């Protein structure tokens, strides 16, 4: 028993080392890629694309459920985006508040009989509306489908452009977001099938008429820690995975997809818990099985800002849901693991997700239990244990500070000295007790999934308001 505990503690050390080393490698790749990207931006001139007659049309799909407070501002923002050929479809997903009435009042909606081909499964559509104020705006009013996927599918059925851009109605997009996210498509339209944009934390920033006036760090610790997490996930993780064409997730808050491909897949899986991850996984499978030469890109320029949970309960629910979503996608796709047919996705990306994302909370829990057992049996080397803790802490901090550095070197959106100092401080503070809480939430998610509890629980939102105006 003691021998087993000793070995398992050592195995845990190597697991952490491997996990952090893989992140370190990603950090190096990301820094290199971002530097090149910054230089490329010098001559890319998004303004030129704005006026070009050659850009392909895009339909923005924005599902909305009980968004009466913010829908009007959100729609105006979407219609104000810089892009030559734009259509905006807002899907009113069975709202029980006045979302539809607000839209009708603000945008002069009138019922139309637009072409709606139900290629992707969704709950029945009640009506289609077109705006008199801006004919680029269409509203699909549908029965509640119980998921974002269901709502997006309804929009997909009504979309008439070769590309669709899926956004959250409550996210804030930068004015040139579409131009930037379409750059990889324009550079290589035959191979690029979808592009993900970076999603950043909106909480704390000053907002005016639905647009960000000044980027600031949130005041609450729980929100600031999420800023560090988002920087790490997007500026390091996704940037590096995309470099190897192994991106397995495109955030549901902002992503562009080739319409024909999404339709060929039957749209989003309505009952998927993590519909965004599920769609990209199915895209990889579909294209790999067809032997297609394709690319899935990521655009790291700051483009989409979204509100993150500001209380522990909502955050816990969100993280549990993400973990459920992960299992919900990885388990049905387990046949892709280590199969040469699925290339890098099957050999690297998915095994990584299994080992360092899905199983991470289980391994962490097992690690804690074995350490406790070893301590109680007197088999724990205190010296090694303390060293191990210090190592884990210091190494994980390197990665977090690396993410902040990446932000500093490239996009530098937090201009205030105070913000940077706080951001760096949270790189040190996030490890206790946030990480342990995170582990518990993820374990909860796995447990809920195994029990069949996949009900979506809403999070509290502040909406598109500036904390400065509160």
């Amino acid at each position, binding site marked *: 028993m003691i*021998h087993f505990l000793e070995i398992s503690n*050592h195995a845990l050390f*190597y697991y952490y080392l491997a996990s952090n080393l893989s992140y370190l490698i990603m950090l190096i790749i990301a820094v290199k890629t971002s530097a090149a990207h910054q230089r490329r931006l010098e001559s890319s001139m998004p303004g030129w*694309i704005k006026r070009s007659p050659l850009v392909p049309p895009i339909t923005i799909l924005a599902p909305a459920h009980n968004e009466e407070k913010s829908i009007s501002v959100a729609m105006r923002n979407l219609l104000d985006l810089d892009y030559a050929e734009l259509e905006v479809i807002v899907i009113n997903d069975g709202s029980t508040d006045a979302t539809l009435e607000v839209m009708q009042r603000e945008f002069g909606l009138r019922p139309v*009989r637009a072409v709606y081909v139900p290629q992707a499964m969704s709950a029945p559509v009640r009506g289609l509306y077109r705006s008199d104020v801006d004919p680029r705006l269409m509203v699909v009013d549908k029965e509640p489908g119980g998921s974002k996927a269901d709502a997006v599918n309804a929009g997909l059925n009504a979309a008439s452009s070769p590309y669709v851009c899926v956004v959250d109605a409550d996210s804030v997009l930068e004015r040139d977001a579409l131009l930037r996210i379409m750059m990889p498509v324009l550079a290589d339209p035959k191979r690029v099938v979808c592009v993900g944009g970076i999603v950043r934390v909106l909480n704390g920033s000053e907002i005016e008429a639905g647009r960000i006036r000044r980027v600031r760090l949130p005041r609450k610790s729980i929100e600031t820690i999420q800023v560090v997490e988002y920087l790490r996930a997007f500026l390091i993780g996704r940037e590096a995975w995309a470099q190897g064409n192994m991106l397995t997730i495109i955030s549901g808050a902002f992503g562009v997809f080739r319409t024909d491909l999404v339709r060929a897949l039957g749209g989003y899986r309505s009952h998927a818990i993590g519909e965004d991850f599920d769609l990209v996984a199915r895209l990889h499978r579909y294209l790999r099985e067809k032997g297609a030469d394709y690319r899935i890109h990521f655009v790291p320029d700051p483009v989409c800002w979204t509100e993150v949970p500001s209380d522990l309960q909502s955050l816990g629910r969100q993280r549990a849901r993400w973990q459920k979503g992960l299992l919900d996608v990885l388990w049905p796709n387990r046949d892709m693991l280590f199969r040469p047919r699925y290339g890098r996705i099957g050999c690297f990306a998915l095994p990584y997700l299994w080992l360092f994302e899905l199983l991470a909370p289980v391994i962490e829990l097992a690690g804690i239990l074995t350490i406790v057992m070893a301590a109680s049996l007197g088999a724990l080397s205190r010296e090694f244990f303390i060293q191990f803790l210090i*190592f884990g802490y210091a*190494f994980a901090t390197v990665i977090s500070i690396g993410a902040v*550095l990446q932000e500093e070197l490239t996009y530098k959106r937090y201009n205030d000295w105070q913000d940077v100092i706080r951001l760096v401080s949270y790189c040190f503070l996030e490890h206790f007790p946030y990480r342990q809480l995170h582990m518990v939430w993820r374990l909860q998610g796995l447990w809920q999934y195994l029990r069949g509890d996949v009900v979506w629980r809403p999070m509290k939102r502040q909406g598109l308001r500036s904390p400065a105006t509160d």
Partner: protein
Amino acid sequence: MEFAFEILRKLNPAALVLKAILVAIVADSLLLAYILLRRTYRKRYFAKRDARLLELRQKWDALISGEIPYETWRKSPSDRRLVETIVLDAFEIAGPQESARLLRFLRASGLIEKRIFGARQHRGWRRHRALVALGRMRAPEGIPALAEGLRDRALETRLAALRGLGRMACPEAAEEILIWVGESGLVVPEFPLQSALVQCCAERPQALLPYLKHAQGAVREVLGRVLGEVATPSLGADLLQFVDDDLDELRAAAARALSHAEPGMAIDVLSELTQDPVWFVRLRAVVSLGKLGHVNTIPVLLRGLTDSNRLVRLRAAEGLVGFRTEMVQIFEKTVATQDRYGFYGYLTALENAGLQGKLEAELKATTRISKQEQAVLLEVLRTGALPVAQPVSPDIAMSAVASRS
């Protein structure tokens, strides 16, 4: 399993962990120090730079006119960069007169020469930067240096040169791009190449034709698309040679370009292209027919309403809605096709154009059809449901449409 345990034991993590801690702490400290020092340095640098920028802006007119000798600022690299930045930013929003004044200044002060030198002599990102600046200057004497940049080994440098030439928007720049594409093939992404060519060939699209004849593969596709974009009625019959091309893209481009041709010639050709096996060729043909806006295109557009591709149907419907004086007849014929998708496509286009009320009023006022037919059509328009009819094959429906038209 025992074997794995043995390996772990031999690796002796206890010995490794101390070293790992040390490395991690050093890395943390270095990263932190770098972030803080960089911030401090940049803060000072930008404060100094902004102050100097303000100073230069305050004496801008004297600077531009040469009243302040160029040598006083040209020798300082930072001042030179600042002046160049101000001029290039001003260029973006300048009218023709101001542009000419700025260009004179760039020439007289030697800034263009400096950038031409940089574009020819430097390598890597320095060359890239010189090419970007040269492109923004839009000075014709920069064209040869930009053309040399097209032959650089680095993709980003080639792109900078290409975009620079695109900004020139003149036939000379187009000539350089076309010669280079002919020599090296497609060694840059399609979009920037197309954009640059569209800008440069707009004045003289004929320049494309000889290159298009001899181009192969992907280059041919790109040139075809550019032709489709920049074609003018002056190209006339030259476009017909591409209508039967093996390349789908080129047929589509010809279809697109024919929207600028004489209707008498274009309608027959476009009508043939609406039956092309490739959907986007049909789409282009239908869009062009809509743009021609000639009554003879109505039967072809009506056939487009029953196309197998939804985009073709939608565009055909949009084209049909453009005929404001024949709305009743078109609606009648659309209903006669008994094609539900086509019919909805037409209603969508009608509603998007806000013309449903107008059609209803015209239907009520028309004396061309019987009262019974009138009532049926009004009911169809109000309910959006096709009248119950015996199943009609598309051929019969189309022949009915054709005979009425």
